[in-house]
């Protein structure tokens, strides 16, 4: 367990020790006073680079290019190296009001001291005198309490080695209670202040790669990746009512990479890679803190939906209408006192890959690869224990354990075969032909076996006279409970094979104009268990063009059209695998980059994507139309302006069927494909989803002298979406929202190699639709103050 995530509901970043809180005020005061006391001294000193630490997201997203890029610090000569270094220390002050859960979900910044950033670059002045490395660069930011932080380290020594590594840490908080919240119903029983599936996890990722003899005829590489994801979270379990579990989410993966490149000839490389991936899933769960007690003082829960879907006691008996009295639960209710699960999972993915690339012949380029991966996965020491009472099944206790060899619950394999080849041939100076072949075959056989021990009770009879049966107070040793043990096995199989080929011709009409055209097909085969083999063909028509009259102007256009059809109508009458997948796609893209003058850049992009599946039982349509524009203007060296504008229109409809006791206005029963429903999902819906979004960024940077830098800007993202509401309790949430984030920053050189900077970021989040159980709007300010030392 990490200190940062001891509590599932603790907000914000790591406190990084209590001393930070204790001296926070003193630190920030010092940061504030320092620039004032030294500002007079500043005008005669060296400039400092702009803040290198990442500002909170809004500011970073909106940051324009520095109006005047300060020249690199002159650095120092240390031990045969030219050294540049920077450290930025300060803190953040956070003020907010509104929804703390949403703040933590979307911003998650807290007050406290920070190492806002650091960097170090070393370059050898004479590689012969620096035996270990010629170049070293490292940088990091976010330490001390930001919700995410990273560190990068790169080193190299001439022809001998390259080394690259990074470490990233990301804290994820989620408490957006639209996906799972019992409060949204009319008869909520348990007051849930947060989402039932709240999580507060941390993801860490370490990447390293060492390449030995990188420019030699034979070079070797070795890499290691270590990723973990852990933290407290809540889940629900569908047993005895939907019982909330406190789940310690924990999994990790180690990846070892070994490889060799053999340069067989000029511009010809043969590579072999061996990957060993080990996954460990150690997520376990226990019953979440229980809100009620039994008459014998045992803590218990009745789940989250008792009144609407579960029986409490037996109809006709006195206890039926009295589930809870003064916090004491009726023992005849369905309830839970223990709900534990442990399912440690171990998976290994040994993978081999052979690659080649050759452009040995001037007009012919070839490359390809072959990959084989055979994974094995087991679930060891599985144990799931339920103690409580299910009035529906009369189960008082249930214990499930793995019944494969060594107590394993499951044993799965995955065989993955990939082969990709491409050839590109320059037929004439103006005509090229490229062909790419892809093959991918995945098979996943899996089997499971478990032993289930149950203690089953007897039902309460309504009489008269009423005879009370098993309840949560019935001792597990009570002779009225009937033990039983059953053994269960199951096996499943999934196979998916893709075979594709794309051929593309490129015609260079003039040096300024290139046209491309081609065809891609993809054959898909899917087999699940003993079902029929399903097969499809997809055909893509490809067109493209580039016009680049000058180096300052380029226009790219691309058009794709896809048509899918099944190859075996007796088994797969549909043209797609899933209902909502389109069988016809058209996608037009255009991009332009224009630099009409050295001081101005424009970029435009447009997408028109439309797709459909006209199956009369589906009527699926979707489109995504967007237009975006960016401009960067630097009228004078000391000033720059950035603008970004985008409008994105996402739309989709798909016929669907659902059940409800409170049909929305206009709901039609037994219509369309729902007339064929074999269950009670009789209402026809269209899954309408529309999310038009408008985005704007404006940023202004001003640096009238090398001692002063000012940046101001704002970013706004406005969503005015809507969706079909299957439930009257559904709220649009962020689908109708405005996220407005202005910012400003100021950097002043306060002394030789020292600078002070202050940043302000405001976060204004507002939902315009119905709020649901609790408003999610928030306003917050993050002030970042820091002092940077750089040389």
């Amino acid at each position, binding site marked *: 367990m990490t200190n940062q995530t001891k509590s599932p509901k603790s907000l914000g970043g790591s406190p990084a020790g209590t001393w930070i809180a204790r001296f926070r005020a003193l630190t920030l005061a010092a940061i504030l006073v320092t620039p004032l006391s030294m500002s007079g001294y500043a005008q005669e000193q060296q400039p400092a680079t702009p803040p290198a630490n990442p500002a909170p997201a809004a500011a970073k997203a909106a940051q324009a290019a520095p109006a005047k890029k300060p020249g690199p610090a002159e650095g120092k000569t240390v031990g045969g190296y030219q050294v540049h270094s920077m450290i930025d220390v300060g803190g953040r002050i956070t003020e907010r009001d509104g929804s703390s859960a949403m703040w933590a979900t979307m911003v998650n910044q807290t007050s406290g001291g920070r190492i806002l950033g650091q960097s170090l670059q070393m370059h050898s002045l004479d590689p012969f005198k620096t035996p270990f490395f010629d170049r070293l660069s490292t940088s990091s930011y976010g330490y001390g309490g930001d919700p995410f932080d990273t560190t990068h380290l790169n080193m190299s020594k001439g022809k001998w080695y390259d080394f690259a590594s990074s470490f990233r840490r990301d804290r994820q908080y989620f408490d957006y209670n639209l996906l799972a919240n019992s409060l949204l119903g009319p008869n909520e029983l348990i007051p849930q202040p947060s989402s039932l599936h709240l999580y507060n996890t941390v993801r860490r990722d370490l990447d390293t790669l060492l390449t030995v003899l990188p*420019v030699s005829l034979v070079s070797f590489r070795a890499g290691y990746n270590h*990723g973990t994801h852990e933290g407290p979270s809540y889940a629900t379990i569908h047993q005895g009512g939907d019982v909330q579990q406190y789940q310690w989410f924990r999994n990790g993966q180690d990846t070892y990479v070994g490889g060799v490149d053999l340069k067989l000839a000029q511009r010809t490389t043969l590579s072999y890679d061996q990957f060993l991936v080990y996954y460990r899933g150690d997520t376990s769960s226990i019953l979440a803190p229980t809100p009620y007690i039994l008459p014998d003082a045992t803590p218990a829960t009745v789940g989250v939906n008792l009144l609407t879907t579960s029986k409490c006691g037996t109809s006709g008996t006195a206890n039926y209408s009295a589930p809870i009295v003064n916090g004491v639960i009726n023992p005849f209710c369905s309830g839970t006192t223990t709900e534990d699960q442990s399912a440690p999972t171990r998976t290994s993915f040994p993978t081999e890959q052979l690659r080649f690339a050759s452009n040995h012949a001037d007009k012919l380029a070839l490359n390809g690869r072959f990959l084989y991966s055979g994974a094995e996965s087991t679930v060891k020491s599985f144990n799931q224990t339920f103690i409580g009472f299910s009035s529906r099944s009369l189960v008082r206790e249930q214990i499930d354990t793995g019944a494969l060899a060594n107590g394993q619950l499951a044993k799965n394999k995955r065989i993955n075969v990939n082969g990709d080849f491409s050839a590109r041939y320059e037929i004439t100076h103006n005509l090229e032909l490229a062909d790419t072949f892809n093959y991918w075959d995945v098979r996943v056989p899996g089997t499971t076996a478990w032993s289930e021990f149950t203690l089953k009770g007897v039902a309460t009879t309504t009489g008269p006279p009423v005879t009370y049966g098993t309840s949560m107070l019935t001792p597990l040793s009570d002779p009225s409970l009937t033990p039983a043990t059953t053994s269960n096995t199951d096996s499943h199989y999934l196979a998916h094979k893709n075979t594709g080929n794309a051929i593309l011709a490129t015609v260079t009409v003039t040096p300024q104009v290139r046209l491309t055209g081609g065809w891609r097909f993809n054959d898909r085969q899917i087999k699940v268990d003993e079902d029929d083999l399903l097969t499809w063909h997809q055909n893509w028509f490809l067109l493209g063009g580039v016009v680049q009259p000058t180096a300052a102007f*380029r226009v790219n256009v691309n058009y794709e059209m896809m048509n899918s059809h099944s190859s075996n109508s007796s088994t797969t009458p549909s043209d797609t695998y899933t209902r909502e997948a389109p069988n016809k796609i058209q996608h037009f893209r255009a991009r332009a980059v224009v630099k009409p003058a050295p001081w101005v850049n424009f970029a435009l992009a447009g997408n028109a994507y439309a797709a459909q599946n006209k199956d009369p039982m589906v009527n699926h349509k979707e489109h995504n139309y967007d237009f975006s524009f960016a401009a960067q203007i630097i009228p004078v060296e000391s000033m720059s302006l950035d603008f970004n504008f985008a409008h994105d229109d996402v739309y989709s409809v798909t016929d669907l069927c659902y059940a409800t006791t409170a049909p929305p206005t206009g709901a039609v029963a037994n219509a369309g494909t729902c007339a064929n429903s074999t269950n009670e999902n009789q209402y026809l819906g269209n899954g309408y989803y529309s999310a038009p979004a408008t985005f704007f960024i404006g940023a202004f940077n001003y640096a009238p002298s090398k001692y002063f830098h000012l940046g101001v800007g704002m970013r706004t993202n406005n969503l005015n979406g809507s969706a079909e509401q299957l439930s009257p309790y559904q709220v649009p949430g962020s689908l109708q929202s405005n996220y407005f984030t202005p910012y400003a920053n100021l950097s002043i050189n306060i002394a030789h190699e020292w600078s002070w900077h202050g940043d302000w970021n405001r976060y204004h989040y507002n939902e315009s639709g119905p709020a649901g159980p609790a408003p999610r709007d928030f306003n917050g300010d993050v002030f970042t103050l820091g002092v940077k030392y750089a040389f």
Partner: protein
Amino acid sequence: MRKDWPVTESPRGVVPWKAPGLRVALTYVLGAIVFCATALASPAPGGKQATGQAVAGQNKSAPATDFVGSEACGACHEEVAKGFASNPHTKLAQMHGQNGVTCEGCHGAGKEHVEGGGDTTKIFNPAKATTKEVNDKCLTCHQGRHANFERSGHGEGSVGCIGCHSIHASEDQDKLLKVSEPSLCFQCHTDIKPQFAMPYHHKVEEGLLTCSDCHNPHGTFGRKSLKASVQQDAVCTKCHTETAGPFVYEHAVVKTEGCTACHFAHGGPNPRLLNRGNVNTICLQCHSPSMNFSTSEPQGPTHNQNTQYQACTVCHIEVHGSNVSPVYFNTH
């Protein structure tokens, strides 16, 4: 639906795979040709041509006497030469007894340029060359690592090497990028930048992730230049490891249709990057009756949308796959 196959047994014997047709056969033939051509084109190791990448950048048509050496270049291009000391390409100079590739490896033999008093027409200047000329020059050495570049969206779209890289004036000195990611990518991909400003998004703007964590800008065999995990699962599974499986009960569409069947990749307005505002809509779009679709099974579940269940995922927790439940509960 179920069959008690031993783990190691494939059901292919029960229902054999069907031949994918003539086109596929042709592609197999093409693949074989490609392999054979490669073998023929490649001399035996140790052969005369096996000179390696270090000298590959030399102007093959220029005699050795046409090369003047980097010191001569530095006499006029002092600033460039000084800055080159920290350039990753400097390692090439240390090859072959410190006689490896330097300025003239990329710019061509400089004798005429020098003798012409700096005549710019006598030297290769990437800034004035066509995209293809520049790409050819760079790929002379970098072909091995960027073998897919010419077929990538960037290559096809005439976005050349120096569209993103600057050898002598880079902000990112490790990758020689003109400006660091993601700003570099957003200079053209203005339609993608707003997606990272959505309420829910991968933390790219914040600096935690980069575009190249998921995409290889030099191209891959996949579409959209997407990378894959080392075991060839979706690139998403490198971080979201718990979704990779393999599971006894695979949710087939996760593996066959990919993560983007239900999630936005960059950012979106919906929690957990779902591509619909309500998770139930996503589920019901597949799990509704349609005689033509095998994936419409099961039709349901039949749950009153007017209850407090609210989300299918309250009960169907393990929607990416489960070792416990065929309906993706986390219990038997």
